[in-house]
């Protein structure tokens, strides 16, 4: 089951959900409307799952920055969010979607125990200008079923990220970079 705005606000007040910074005005019917952070990494080379991704990092100027199709951008949410109790799903909203922007590449799930500024995997269908701090999508919270397990206890890769993380899949692939 998915939390409504009232349930999200109550869970924030009870410290069961952390959203930082939290703006009650950004609660929508059954989601929190999150914003795009100001840092962007551009990945326009050839990639290898067994090697770290080369990138160049830029700040999105207040006048905006044009995303080009066929380039992969890694961005970050302005907010840090986390919950030990609820799973999270991050997606774009219908406004960003109608601009032809993917905010992630088929990986929306935030596990219970995540406490992160989310790395975004941004791709554009057409050239499109984006701005730092713009509302970029919706974050929903899901009730879980079964005994809880926290991401923090799994020894996983991205437990406390505070910025953009390139993929660390290479750590898992035999013969990959370490």
């Amino acid at each position, binding site marked *: 089951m998915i939390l409504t705005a009232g349930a999200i606000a109550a869970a924030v007040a009870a410290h069961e959900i952390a959203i930082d910074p939290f703006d009650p005005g950004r609660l929508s019917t059954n989601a929190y409307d999150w914003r795009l952070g100001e840092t962007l990494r551009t990945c*326009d080379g050839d990639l290898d799952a067994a090697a770290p991704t080369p990138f160049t990092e830029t700040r999105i100027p207040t006048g905006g920055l044009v995303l080009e199709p066929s380039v992969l951008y890694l961005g970050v949410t302005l907010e840090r969010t986390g919950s030990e109790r609820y799973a999270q799903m991050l997606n774009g909203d219908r406004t960003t979607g109608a601009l032809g922007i993917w905010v992630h590449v088929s990986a929306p*799930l935030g596990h*219970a125990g995540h406490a992160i500024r989310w790395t975004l995997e941004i791709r554009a269908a057409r050239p499109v200008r984006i701005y730092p701090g713009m509302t970029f999508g919706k974050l929903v919270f899901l009730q879980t079923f079964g005994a809880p397990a926290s991401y923090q206890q799994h020894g996983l890769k991205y437990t406390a990220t505070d910025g953009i993380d390139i993929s660390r*899949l290479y750590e898992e692939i035999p013969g990959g970079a370490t």
Partner: protein
Amino acid sequence: MILTGPEITAAHQDGRLRIDPFEPGQVNPNSYNVRLGPTLLTYTEPVIDAHRPNPTTATRIGPAGYVLRPGELYLGHTLEEVGSDTFVPLLFGRSSVGRLGLFVEITAPIGDIGFHGQWTLMLSPTRPLKVYPGMKIGQIMFFVSVGPVDLYTGKYQAATGPQPSRYWRDQTGTGAVA
């Protein structure tokens, strides 16, 4: 409600869901990591026709990896057979794979209660990307359902290896050749 990792393990043990082979190390706080199988299919005609069976060619991903090219659609598959007669499965990419710009499914994350088999992956890279057989590529999560269940008996049941679209099978009386 979304199943926790311990509940996925418990449900695997008591038969409410089936993952074969099952490896405890692939259980996440709210999902199970699935691996990339060795076979890729690509459509061979320049235009895919939704109303016709489309010829494909198979490629085997060798241990040295295989480079996926942007602009091509690759049908891959999970090594694992996954299904449940109780829970609704959803398949997504992993964040580590999304950060490499690789779409693992295209607009169809939701599975059917009662489907059992290898899942077809719809691989579409943003940048040229080298992938490896057996790499943990996606994650399947399970949701509790509400209401009576009519188990899946559809056209992809018991799939082994990647399955091209069989939309053409559903064409009745619309002038399509089947």
